[in-house]
């Protein structure tokens, strides 16, 4: 065998299983879902189904899908924003200020929530946020007579819970990007007359932007499709498009509508990324 054929074989045998797995577990079900979204009956119904666009039509004709979608997108932006606001400084401190064993210990604290079940994490938030919960009691202890605080089943509760769930993604992606920035670049900036802040703005921030972008994408996409956190922490108030999709599958058993809504959600994500892409590519390309 010539070297090139050998290389090809190596690539094929190494990547083949992964592609096969992805094709079977992601691509085929997705295709089935796409087909399903154009049917007028659920496959559970023992009657022949026929082709229809009604499921997509329902999204645009029924008034209540639009506010749900808007809230989902808002939720995506808010959670991404708060993750960045809290996660980036933490990642910066970890990558640039804390050295040695402390770094490992703090890292452990960050990934620790990943080791517990997501449901457990979310339900424990209900303990914190409900009236007479931990937040309420602390506020009452500090300011006796203050009005009772009941955050549970509200928009802020959903944002708080989701931010908590997805914060580690932002910390990890930003940490990786920041850690790759050589300290001598910051020293060079300062030796050239830039203040620490200017050096951060002109050197560190642009170079860590790829980490911010990938963290934001990792968070934004699952958050706008989320249904578990909004259901438990938001109740009826926090209803999202994701919750509605889940109900189509589990409660009303209207799979075609659920599939159609899923693809609409996918389209929304793609459109948002399409709009942001030129900006992201410009910034990312500089980095």
């Amino acid at each position, binding site marked *: 065998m010539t070297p090139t054929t050998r290389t090809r074989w190596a690539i094929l045998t190494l990547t083949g299983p992964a592609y096969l797995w992805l094709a079977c577990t992601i691509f085929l079900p997705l295709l089935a879902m796409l087909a399903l979204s154009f049917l007028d009956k659920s496959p559970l119904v023992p009657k022949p189904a026929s082709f229809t666009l009604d499921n997509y039509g329902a999204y645009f004709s029924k008034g209540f899908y639009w506010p749900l979608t808007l809230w989902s997108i808002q939720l995506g932006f808010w959670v991404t924003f708060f993750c960045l606001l809290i996660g980036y400084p933490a990642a910066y401190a970890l990558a640039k200020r804390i050295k040695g064993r402390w770094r490992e210990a703090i890292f452990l604290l960050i990934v620790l929530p990943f080791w517990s079940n997501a449901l457990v994490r979310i339900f424990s938030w209900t303990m914190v946020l409900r009236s007479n919960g931990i937040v309420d009691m602390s506020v009452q202890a500090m300011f006796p007579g203050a009005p009772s605080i009941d955050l549970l089943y509200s928009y802020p509760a959903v944002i708080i819970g989701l931010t908590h769930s997805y914060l580690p993604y932002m910390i990890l992606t930003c940490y990786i990007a920041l850690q790759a920035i050589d300290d001598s670049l910051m020293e060079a900036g300062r030796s050239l*007359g830039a203040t620490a802040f200017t050096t951060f703005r002109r050197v560190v921030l642009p170079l860590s932007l790829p980490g911010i972008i990938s963290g934001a994408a990792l968070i934004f996409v699952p958050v706008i499709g989320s249904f578990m956190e909004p259901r438990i922490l938001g109740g009826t108030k926090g209803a999202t498009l994701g919750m509605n999709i889940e109900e189509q599958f589990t409660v009303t058993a209207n799979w075609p509508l659920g599939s159609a809504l899923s693809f609409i959600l996918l389209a929304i994500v793609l459109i948002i990324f399409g709009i942001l892409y030129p900006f992201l590519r410009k910034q990312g390309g500089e980095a």
Partner: protein
Amino acid sequence: MSEVAVKGAVKRYGSIAALDGVDLTFADGEFFGLLGPSGSGKTTLLRSIAGFIELDAGEIRIDGTDISRIPVHQRNIGMVFQNYALFPHMSVAENVAFGLDVRNVPASEIRERVGESLDLVRLTGLEARRPKQLSGGQQQRVALARALVTRPKVLLLDEPLSALDKHLRQEMQVELRRIQRQIGITTIFVTHDQEEALTLSDRVAIFNKGQVVQAGAPRTVYQWPVNRFAAGFLGEANFLEGKVVGVLGHEARVAIPDGSEIVVTHQGIANGANVLVALRPEKISIEPGGSQAPRLNRVIGRVQAAIFSGSSLTYRVSVGDRLFVVFEQNKNRAPLVEQSAVTLEWETADNVVVQP
């Protein structure tokens, strides 16, 4: 241009003194090399002058003004880092312009000065390139242009050439020297490459354990090392331990362990004193045959190893129970064979009495 004076500089990390009372003055326009093994304090001193390290005690003055408490960005220094530290997300021109940009220099002036600076390092035409698209030597030039464009008072170089291959390094040495001469900037550079330090510097300082062992012109320091460390660090040296057996006028005779006697120029040493003499390998002449009559500054030995390295040969010669290292230019003579008897001879002036 500027004079930099360091007085009583001390910096401790726990129980280790990185700088242990360093006094050095860098004259206006001087090219000064800081030389020493790793951990000797040379880099700590450079970084203290830059402002990245705060001294525990002592002061650093530029033109008489104490800058010890002035933050890095207000010191007006130019620094070239070992890995160049070019901003990867900026073009060559943007990299060079950075220092002017943060000083709010008008755009037209920035363009002009960036152009001049790139011209100085002979990189005109590469303004739009990214650092990644440049060779190591070109990156080095960009780093230099970037450090000089703000017209700093002093230029600091941290092992500037260590990342380049030998050929490029020699070329850049010449370039560095030319640029430094052209603008006449006080330049302090750190290196562990002794040859580089000797080639480039007007003066060098040898560091060991946080202290300056010796400072002076390269030739002086090489010819007249003050102690065993300085003699051994800068170039190679044979060390002869002996006892003064006679003093005559300006010269003293010293008996060395193999029974021969050598002559050192008088240093005010008393008869009977123990002395340490450093002798450079290239000063010794080596001749075949071991039957010559005994004479001062002459020993008989046996070749233990002959190492050929192109332009020169290194011999290891056993004399009594110790080894002499001898360098010989590769002239038209067959190399001396191992185990053959040889005579080593040198001049009185080559014997340098050093502190242990």
